[in-house]
């Protein structure tokens, strides 16, 4: 595969917390026009991958490149400007600020103000439920609506790559389906998506292909359909 077909490439990434290794040489790639997922149990290191890619955690070794250019070691606020945005685990919204303020902060570094207005309108088309709540402090919304704000805020930076860290956790099944549809729609709109999930069933229904992460290392990678058929994945992650 030529490098230009990869929008995000992670090579031999290792992260330690103190003396405890959290990632041991993880390599994975996000291909243009596709949705990828990382599936792993509690503490496998999924969020650590996300944080290392976004610049919130400094890796001990390895590299991350975005559209063929290295971004390893850049501060988080510079990586957003280069077209990568994360919906973090636990949403991390600015709770006392309004929905509108949260969404606008997503576009903080954009200079193309006209486009920001268009993207704001398009984002409300994805999430019509937010339309009436724009002046509400985000902390008083339901979990599902908060997740919508978190995704919407990330989209407001007009990313070419979107990372989502367990966006469906703790949500009611109907809301999980909504979020799943929206993630697929985002993928179709030309944004490459990397989705992290504990819920393998949801993840494999959204993504084109996936990686299985155990104890900080990738143990399997394949097309979603193949992973869903695999005996080990079914036993460990699908509870069958």
């Amino acid at each position, binding site marked *: 595969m030529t490098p230009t077909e990869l929008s995000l490439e992670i090579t031999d990434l290792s992260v330690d917390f103190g003396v405890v290794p959290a990632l041991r040489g993880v390599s994975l790639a996000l291909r243009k026009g596709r949705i990828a997922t990382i599936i792993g149990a509690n503490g496998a290191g999924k969020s650590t991958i996300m944080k290392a890619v976004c610049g*919130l955690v400094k890796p001990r070794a390895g590299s991350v490149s975005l559209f063929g250019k290295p971004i390893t070691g850049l501060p988080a*606020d510079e990586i957003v400007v280069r077209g990568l945005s994360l919906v973090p685990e636990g949403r991390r919204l*600015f709770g006392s600020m309004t929905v509108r303020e949260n969404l606008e*902060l997503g576009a903080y570094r954009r200079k193309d103000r006209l486009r920001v207005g268009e993207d704001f309108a398009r984002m409300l088309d994805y999430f019509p439920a937010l339309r009436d709540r724009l002046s509400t402090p985000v902390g008083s919304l339901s979990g599902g609506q908060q997740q919508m704000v978190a995704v919407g805020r990330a989209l407001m930076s007009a990313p070419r790559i979107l990372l989502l860290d367990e966006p469906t956790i703790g949500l009611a099944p109907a809301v999980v389906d909504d979020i799943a549809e929206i993630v697929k729609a985002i993928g179709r709109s030309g944004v490459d998506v990397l989705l992290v999930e504990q819920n393998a069933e949801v993840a494999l229904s959204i993504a084109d292909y996936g990686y299985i992460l155990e104890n900080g290392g990738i143990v399997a990678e394949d097309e979603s359909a193949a992973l869903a058929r695999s005996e080990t994945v079914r036993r460990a992650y699908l509870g069958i």
Partner: protein
Amino acid sequence: MQTAFQIIATGLQIGAIYVLFSLGLTLTFGIMRIVNFAHGQFFTLSALVVAVVMPYLASAGLPLPAAFAGSAAAGIAASLLLGLVTYQWGFRRLQHDFVGSFILSLGLILLLEGLYLEVFGGAVRSVPPIIDGTVSVFGASLTTQRLLLCFVAMVLTGLLYAALALTPMGKALRAASIDHEAAMLQGIPYQRIARHGFMIATLLAAVAGALIAPVSVVTTTLGSDYLIKGFIAVIVGGLGSIPGAIIGSLFIALVESVGGYFFDPSRASIAIFALVMVVLLVRPQGLMGHG
């Protein structure tokens, strides 16, 4: 009734300065999660420079208001420079490091008070009044000068409030105070925002110091008393909360003026500590603090 107005008016006058002081403390805490106990030194330096430069300018023939404006500009500039130096070579490396910043700020207090004593001497200085006269409001009499001081403090507080609520930079600062990592994930340049926040806090202390110089005696330890009051005010109001700092400051000032009227100033201080304990027992996060 007249007495009540007098007490409230006195409280507001003291409170206006406490507000400027504690806004800086709470801003620094919000954005960097540190308490800068050396915040009072910015205040002291500005007051000292005013106390030294103003008589000099006045004796050179400048009218008093112009001499004050000139010396205030010099005092504020000196404090800002000090703020920038302590930030670049100190606090910048200690963001979110409560213990480290505690040690640094205590060290700075000792160092700077020693330096001030060396440079400015131990003499108690006073600045000639800029404007004479008193104004009577609802039977309470206030010196024009103190009224002006209150007015400037209120305008500054209002400006800061509006800037935080309405400007993109203000919103970024609030976001970074809530969750600095999440703010960086939105592209907010945290390092730059933290420096701005620290310098705004320094500016507020410097202005407060320049304003206090003509209405109080200026010594090299002037800031310590204000630091204690300002710190209590932000604890009562809720560390990191802007409305909390304002309410806390006015609360402390009112207790002080009521206590000072009916008893004596030392009892007023005891009353403040007692009330702080009551507030913190009922609401450990402070009046306006979260969680």
